[in-house]
């Protein structure tokens, strides 16, 4: 019993050490964002939270269009999320619950697209969007990502187990067409799965860097991540301001995550187990 107890304590000590490592960079971000730059440059460095946080945040707003970038990022993230939820769940519903000629072939094709890292085609993707005249516009951020193989695969697994065939049969008897069946039978049952896919998609678009860096070439229309890097590049030595910007950019997502995170983590793990 005694060794059991010691093992438990050691386990928690190990876990708490890990938590400290996980959380420390956030604390350090706050320390730097709330002190003045000379304080940060001083030796020994200040290790506690200072009193200049709002002043530093103000400097961020003076130097970049922070809220403009945040709004653009929010619109892009929400846009992609809504489209992905709709297209992916609709396709998943059809794949999971209906027999149609070529279904398995099409699904196999969809799985095969996983194998192709489309990043290898970064250059022609850019050229394609340039041909469309989409460079610098929101369309470039939203449309290419509006449906994806991962989401369809994941939602299909979910739909197979979650939607009872009897409900669909009943809807058919009532004379509902395919789309109506999706709306009245599929969507309500798929809601928990949609919550996961929605958070997952939103976070990915919000944090994406390489793609917006390439396609958002108008300096007045940058995403948050690119604007933040620009702040860092131009005012790199003004650490307290740069860190205040970084802090402001991570707070919204962390808020979303702490509220909806518990189920999200379980779903991420469950998704990995399906592969």
């Amino acid at each position, binding site marked *: 019993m005694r060794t059991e107890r010691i093992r*438990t304590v050691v*386990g*928690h000590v*190990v*876990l708490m050490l*890990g938590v400290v*490592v*996980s*959380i420390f960079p956030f604390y350090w*971000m706050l320390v730097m964002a709330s002190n003045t730059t000379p304080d*940060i*440059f001083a*030796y*020994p460095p200040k290790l506690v939270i200072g009193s200049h946080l709002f002043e530093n945040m103000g400097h961020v707003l003076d130097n970049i269009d922070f809220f403009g970038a945040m709004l653009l990022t929010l619109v892009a993230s929400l846009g992609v999320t809504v*489209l992905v939820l709709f*297209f*992916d769940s*609709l*396709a998943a*519903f059809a794949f999971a619950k*209906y027999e*149609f*000629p070529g279904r398995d072939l*099409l699904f196999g*094709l*969809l799985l095969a697209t996983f194998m192709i*890292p489309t*990043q*290898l*085609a970064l*250059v*022609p993707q850019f*050229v*394609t969007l340039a041909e469309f005249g989409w460079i610098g516009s929101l369309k470039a951020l939203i*449309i*290419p990502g*509006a449906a*994806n193989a991962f989401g*369809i695969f994941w939602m299909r697994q979910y739909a197979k187990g979650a939607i009872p065939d009897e409900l669909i049969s009943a809807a058919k008897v009532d004379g509902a*067409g*395919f789309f*109506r069946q999706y709306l009245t039978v599929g969507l309500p049952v798929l809601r928990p799965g949609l919550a996961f896919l929605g958070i997952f998609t939103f976070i990915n678009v919000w*944090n994406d*860097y*390489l793609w917006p860096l*390439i396609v958002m070439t108008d300096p007045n229309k940058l995403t948050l991540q690119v604007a*933040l*890097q620009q702040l*860092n590049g131009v005012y*790199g030595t003004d650490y307290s301001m740069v*860190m205040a910007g970084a802090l402001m950019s*991570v707070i919204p997502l962390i808020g979303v*995550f702490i509220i909806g995170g*518990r189920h999200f*983590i379980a779903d991420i*793990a*469950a998704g*990995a*187990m399906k*592969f």
Partner: protein
Amino acid sequence: MAVSETVRGRAADVSANSPDGPPNRFRQAIPQYAAVSPFFILFAIFGAFPVLFSIWLSFHSWDGIGTMKWVGIEQYSYLLTDPSFWKSITNTLIIWVISTVPMLALALVIANALHNATRFRTFYRIAYFIPNITSVVAVTMVFGSIFSNNFGLLNAFLQSVGLDKIEWLSQPWGIKVAIASIVAWRWTGYNAIIFLAGLQAISSDIYEAARVDGASPRQMFWRITVPLLRPVILFTAVTSTIGGLQIFTESQVLFGSSGAIGGPGDGGLTIVSYLYDSAFGKNQFGYGAAIGWALFILIVLFSVINWRLIGGNDDERLTSRAARRVQRKIAAERAGAGQADADAGKEHADAH
């Protein structure tokens, strides 16, 4: 929204018309085809076409504005003799190894501890997962300041214990350590959560049976946990490989505005940052496309290596299969009681 309108329209049309039309299997399935079509249309335009186009492009010299000039395999033959390209490959591989190996080992330790912990589970999970949802740009800025040459926290610490400062961000190896730390920090918790799910899927009866047979904890770890966890380890190894070979943002944020994208001595020049710089910095679109294909070949190569290594030799596969069989047998025998236990366990976990 135009596409979704189309889907809506077609679906409505068909449901209205099909009772009157001939009972054709394909025609009846039009709503389903419409439902799955958005992905295939988007993939054709933004995935398949660019991939094919990039093959064509890689045989040309093109600055993105003028006319494309056919150069045959010149881009590829230049690639093979380009020291910067090889440097970007070695840099990427070094960063990948020094981040992934400690990361997966640590993740396994954390997953084990999480598996045994009965209290604070939700707190731990959220705390471990938060790094993964935080933007690489912001994280890199914080780590950049921690590793900073002159006033970085790490150097302040080294000085306070009487050691010399290290110019982390001026030396090729220091840059790699800094980038690898960022990668490991962001992904250790994620991988631990995945391992944890794998551990939870292993029936505790197997351990019980092994304990009765007098197995040591060490034996149980290597003979039961690792073989049964193998598919999960493979998943984390493959995803870490694919992600690791595409490292870009960290070095771009650290050095992108300094003029040299790879930093001092090109110590942080990764494959994707070289691709980005060639195509979008120097407007060598054909060369960028060729680098993209080299990256693709590397990813396939390393995924296969992972598969072979972790897929294991036949002997080990047998062990794993045998263990699985035992697990299935025990599960079948105890189906009734086991189910009740599992439900109780789930409730227990949810309560925390």
